[in-house]
């Protein structure tokens, strides 16, 4: 398909996967990433293999795709770049590509939004003390350290009791975040197993609402139970500094087995924070006039096509997804985009 080009907004794994798919089909792509590197949030995802066995988090699927997209002649990667003034112009879209304050007018036959997600700020869940208590961290923090400093980073820490708290910032109608972020159960259980396998002396407790277990690749929950990770149904009301030992956190929770409030102490509390659409998606939706659902994700009727013809969504800007699911969704978005181009080029 000569003389066609598609602009993909966002160079995380979804944008990269969509770009690769289109390029393999002969479509020229401008891939625009605001950061100086491709990869987005996946750059902080660590390997969670336990006892020599992969846990299917998909973190390892990224590197080869990032390299492949850079080597792809039909893909032009624009790093540290943003897009402004994007608007429909007849059968195409015109926009300005801004790289280091240099503006360039460009056009594209179709647009794929792949603006990804932000981690929900754990500080918005005040009672859990994130930011104020040093022993309270987020799953994102833990994952980033494991990736940057290696899997042994928590081995030497004296962690007798570790708690994970699920659904922080997610499934929370009071905060207008009623959605399930889909990834936090999986990463938390996998991280808990990794921690448990590396430090067998550590007792791990996971406070949860409902573990999202569906899927052939989600055996981690059953394995975690076998390995002695304790699951408690119900989320703690509050996390405080322990009065007995100021290095520890005290978690106050409702024990549904006894119906009583209980306090347990932990050396480390990991908040499994959810994910929300990036603010870029909001801007894009407003400029282009595409619809968003009530939680702010780009609304799509049929998987990837958005409310305006020629604009598609790939990955987490449309709904929370794991890495491998994002790759599949981005492929579907690229496929839908390719078909649109076929229909509109004759």
């Amino acid at each position, binding site marked *: 398909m000569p003389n066609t080009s598609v602009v993909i907004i966002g160079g995380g794994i979804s944008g990269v996967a969509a770009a690769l798919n289109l390029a*393999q089909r002969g479509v020229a792509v401008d891939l625009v990433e605001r950061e100086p590197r491709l990869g987005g949030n996946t750059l902080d995802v660590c390997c969670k293999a336990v006892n020599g066995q992969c846990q299917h988090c998909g973190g390892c699927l990224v590197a080869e795709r990032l390299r492949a997209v850079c080597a792809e002649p039909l893909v032009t990667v624009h790093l540290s770049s943003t897009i402004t003034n994007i608007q429909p112009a007849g059968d195409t879209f015109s926009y300005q590509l801004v790289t280091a304050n240099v503006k360039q007018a460009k056009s594209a036959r179709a647009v794929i939004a792949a603006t990804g997600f932000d981690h929900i700020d754990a500080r918005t869940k005040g009672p859990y003390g994130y930011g104020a208590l040093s022993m309270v961290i987020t799953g994102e923090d833990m994952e980033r350290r494991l990736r940057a400093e290696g899997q042994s980073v928590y081995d030497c820490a004296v962690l007798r009791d570790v708690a994970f708290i699920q659904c922080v910032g997610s499934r929370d109608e009071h905060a207008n975040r009623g*959605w399930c972020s889909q990834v936090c159960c999986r990463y938390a259980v996998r991280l808990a197993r990794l921690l448990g396998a590396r430090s067998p002396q550590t007792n791990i407790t996971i406070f949860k609402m*409902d573990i999202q277990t*569906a899927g052939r690749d989600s055996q981690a929950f059953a394995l975690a139970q076998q390995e002695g990770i304790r699951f408690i149904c119900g989320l703690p009301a509050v996390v405080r500094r322990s009065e007995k030992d100021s290095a520890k956190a005290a978690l106050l929770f409702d024990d549904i087995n006894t119906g009583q409030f209980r306090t347990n102490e932990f050396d480390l509390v990991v908040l499994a924070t959810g994910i929300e659409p990036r603010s870029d998606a909001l801007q894009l939706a407003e400029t282009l006039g595409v619809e968003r659902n009530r939680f702010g994700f780009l609304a799509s009727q049929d998987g990837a096509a958005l409310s305006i013809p020629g604009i598609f969504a790939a990955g987490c800007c449309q709904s929370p997804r794991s890495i*491998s*699911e994002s790759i599949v969704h981005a492929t*579907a978005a690229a*496929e839908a985009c390719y*078909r649109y181009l076929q229909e509109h080029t004759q």
Partner: protein
Amino acid sequence: MNKTVAVLGGSADAGWVVEELLALSYSVAWVGQEDLPDSPRSDGLRAYPRSRVSAVSGCVGSFRLELSAPPERAVIDAAAIIVAMGNQRLPLGADARIPAHPRVLSTQVLAERLSAPRQISGIAPAQRQHILFALDMLELSGKQAVVETLELALRTHDTWHCEVSVLYRELQVDSDLLESLTRTMREQGIVFHRLQDALPVVDDSGVHVKHADGVLDGDLLVIAPVVRPRSDSAELAGLLRIALGADGYFQQLNVRSYRPGLSNRKGIYLAGRCHLDADDAGARADAAQAAANVAILLGQDHLQPETVIAEVGSTKCIRCLTCIRTCPHAAVELAAYGQVTAAKVVELACFGCGACAANCPVRAITMKGIDVPVWLQEAALV
């Protein structure tokens, strides 16, 4: 190049794959053991209902499938194959822990009764009944089962205006659909209870299920379907020379191949619930992925081998078949080299992993396309 794609399986999953492929203008040969669902009429589609694959030969770009469809036989030449045979559900009586009693139903039976609404088994008018829907009863329910059961629970509530409760262990909400479904259900007064380990008790007075807050009494208990890989998966996998996982679904559970629906062989792809757990939306997305896999493969004018592939030195080969047994991609076969028979690597099918080369007891196999440093070269061997 032949651009026919063979789609194997009569499931809804296969129907979506066929739709996707036709939209991409591929010729499709659709083979199913059962009657095939209605599909868009298209010149590109040849349907082979009530047919079994009896033999498969060739490789990516030129597979040949022989079908036995009594009384006639058919042959399909296809460039690629998509397996989309779906899964199967266990009958309710398959597990003795679920009491056999007229008050205990499968979702299918309830769905049938729902479309003929008057009375249920003479127990009481439907409106005054309390119907319990149990997810996760014997094992945690997958997405397909959860969506089907919750949609049925809501439909029952809407149709019969009866009391409906849902029992679960871990409620799946991790998709837009499930989230809005459970929200709607709660808004309509359907109550959710978390199951305890105890099994349901059924007697003439009703069904009784222990849950986290007490005991729930109802008139009927509807059990979410329990799905398993199809029993004929192994046979088809054998014919196609592709792997099954330890759990019986297609392909080992491997992070690099699982989601994209790749099999261990070039040109054979997997779609839908023969390899993953998904609701209809997920299976549709997977069908699009399978079609994209094919489109990427067949989008080129000629199929190209990988840059690194194995090559057999036919004069060194002792025909021990080790390479044929060990190749994870079924890419080695016996072939005639003039007068001699020896192992031969099918170039298009080779992934270039080198397992054959490392396993060959006489070092007859070398890897083409790799720079081997002097210190590693065979010539340096004593």
